[in-house]
């Protein structure tokens, strides 16, 4: 399998905006001159269900899906969904995750329980895992809707892509009237 291809797996809950985050990420990688592929599913699985998005980049990318156990960065928008895909991480891979719990229907109904201490379990396999309070920083940036941009900022610290390319990606994908708070959110995420 291609050693020069890097793999990022985004994991979250339908409705969290993971698709837009993966768009900004892919756009940035294209601006950085990489071949990029991205894959995800829409439709039935989006209604509050578990969602993932595969982003792969390098000199030449074939498969849009990441081979098992080869995720370089697991980029999570919710704790349980990140934990669900933790075993796809390659040894030595990085984790950037939003410190947020969204209860699945079965947990909300009280028939199943939300796993205990997910941050600890993630750190057990990835000591350097970055666990970010996305909502807190988004509120500091001036809008709670900038959570995903905060997370992209935190992700950017784990990837060797120049900062100006990230900013160019954001400028291209974020509507002008929301740009200022998103740029602030990105910086707060980078510093987190």
């Amino acid at each position, binding site marked *: 399998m291609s050693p020069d291809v890097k793999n990022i797996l985004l994991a979250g809950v339908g409705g969290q905006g993971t698709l837009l985050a993966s768009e900004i990420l*892919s756009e940035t990688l294209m601006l950085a001159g990489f071949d990029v592929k991205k894959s995800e599913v829409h439709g039935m699985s989006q*209604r509050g269900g578990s969602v993932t998005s595969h982003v792969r980049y390098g000199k030449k990318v074939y498969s*849009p899906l990441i081979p098992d*156990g080869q995720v370089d960065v697991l980029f999570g928008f919710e704790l349980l969904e990140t934990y669900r895909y933790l075993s796809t991480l390659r040894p030595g891979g990085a984790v950037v995750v939003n410190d947020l719990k969204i209860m699945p*229907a*079965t947990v909300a*109904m*009280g028939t199943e329980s939300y796993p205990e201490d997910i941050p600890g379990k993630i750190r057990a*396999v990835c000591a350097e895992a970055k666990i970010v309070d996305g909502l807190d920083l988004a509120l500091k940036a001036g809008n709670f809707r900038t959570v995903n941009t905060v997370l992209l900022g935190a992700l950017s610290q784990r990837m060797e892509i120049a900062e100006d390319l990230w900013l160019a990606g954001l400028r291209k994908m974020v509507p002008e009237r929301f740009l200022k708070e998103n740029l602030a959110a990105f910086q707060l995420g980078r510093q987190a």
Partner: protein
Amino acid sequence: MSQAILSGNEAFARGAFEAGVRVASAYPGTPSTEILENIAQYQEIDSSWAPNEKVSLEVAIGASFGGARAMVAMKHVGLNVAADPFMTLSYIGVRGGLVVVVCDDPEMHSSQNEQDSRHYARLGKAPMLEPADSAEALAFTRLAFELSEQFDTPVLLRSNTRISHGKSIVTLGERVTGLPDPKIERNPGKFVMLPGNARKRHPLVEQRLLDLKTWGCDQEINRIEEGEGEIGVITAGIAYQYAKEVLPKAHILKLGMVYPLPEQLIRDFAARCKTLYVIEELDPFIEEQVKALGIEVKGKEIFPLCGEFSPSRVAAALGLPQSQGVAVPSEPLPNRPPNMCPGCSHRGVFFALKRLGAFVTGDIGCYTLGALPPLSAMDTCVCMGAGISNATGVAKALGEAERSKVVGIMGDSTFLHSGITSLMDMAYSKTPATAIILDNRITAMTGRQDNPGSGHTLAGLEAVPVNLEAICRAVGIRHVQAVDPYDLARTQQVIDEEMRRPEPSVVIARRSCMLDRHGRGVRSTPLFVKADVCTACKACVKIGCPAIEWRVGEEGGKGRAYVNQALCVGCGLCRQVCKFDAFGVGHES
């Protein structure tokens, strides 16, 4: 020439624009929906949502009769609906080029089956192209129109979830110019498929296939990629990407045209390889044809027939070593199935049906989620339009004692798609079942597209919304009642009344989708649970609203319901099922 990162669906749309398409039509269906949504941005193309796939294809055939290039897009099961015009279109051929994009859904991410639509190419005796990424989606769309006019044939373009919803880099081109202007041209021998004319067309269709087989042998879309060693792979579409990923050194015959197959090219390629694999998702479509040429290949005896491929699945089938991820102690995790949104207008109807003990024959849409717990109030689901006709059949089968329990249910868009004839049959056969139309004014599941009942068009223009009550009455239903599904007591009472009625009847549950693009979904003040009033009976939890959480009590306490106010839209359904008046509006003071 600029570069862009496009989804396969955006690339099909761009390809249609560049190919000079003038007319495009579709019914939404995952994973094909975004093709028409993206085509709609090009002013040069008349694009519209049709009530169903059959109509969309017939519109495109008409455009082709008029001399325009036309495209339709549909999901795999949509082609079943459009199969009737498609089969005869193959005999007629085209005037303006005509391309049918069909998007399969291996793994059934959002579908009721994972049929392999390549069989339609063989059944209809029409060529099928299959791109492997967005760049090919664009290029093959352009090529498909040239092929269509050159060989006087409709052309199928096959996609799947990973192509349609995967993004990759493409180079954009210009729209072709110099295509002939559409005008009336009569050609009854070709356009009027009376038996006498059709008999003359059939031999032309057979010859066309032979010509295409030969044509395909020296085309760039069917290419050999030289490798090293003795392993050869014949593959196409998304499977090509997985083959390249796991067998980077193999010789590859990448087929861009998956029907008809370039036989001589396959024979030449096979002669050079000691071990030959056919790597294809779903059915052994290429494999069986290659074997019929007398060539020995390995295919479905090692590769799965069910589900979608991935690099790891292909590697495992080939017995190649697998990379291992980090070791995570195994622990059962709560699943996260999809759910109806907070404030969904379908929720109250299913809650009422459950209370009434109805046997519910369902249909395709967001409301199919009504089959899942805790509502668990849908008993069958087959295909678009089956909800009402299945109810007729179940009621015919049952004795009088159980007949009144039968309720057929479907959404407004599904009713307009193929439910009207089902209802007509229920009325005509005087079957005493009840039909419910969940009228949320939109085609919700695929992303809230407009439909003939929504009052708007794909192009953003206002339209006269179809009058559902009038249709029901016109097909012979005497009892049609509309209810607001936010009023649970009234909804349940009306459904109960109609179920008891010994003749066919319709209940229309009308309330806009909360995610309606025209802003008709009404949000009210969120609710809260009065901590001291909640008796922990869990009745509210049983409506399955994502905004209601159950919080376990501390130290063996009884626990209580809690409203997530960020999600609550104030529909008030929970308040109506609470016997203790534990819900308040606004914030707990």
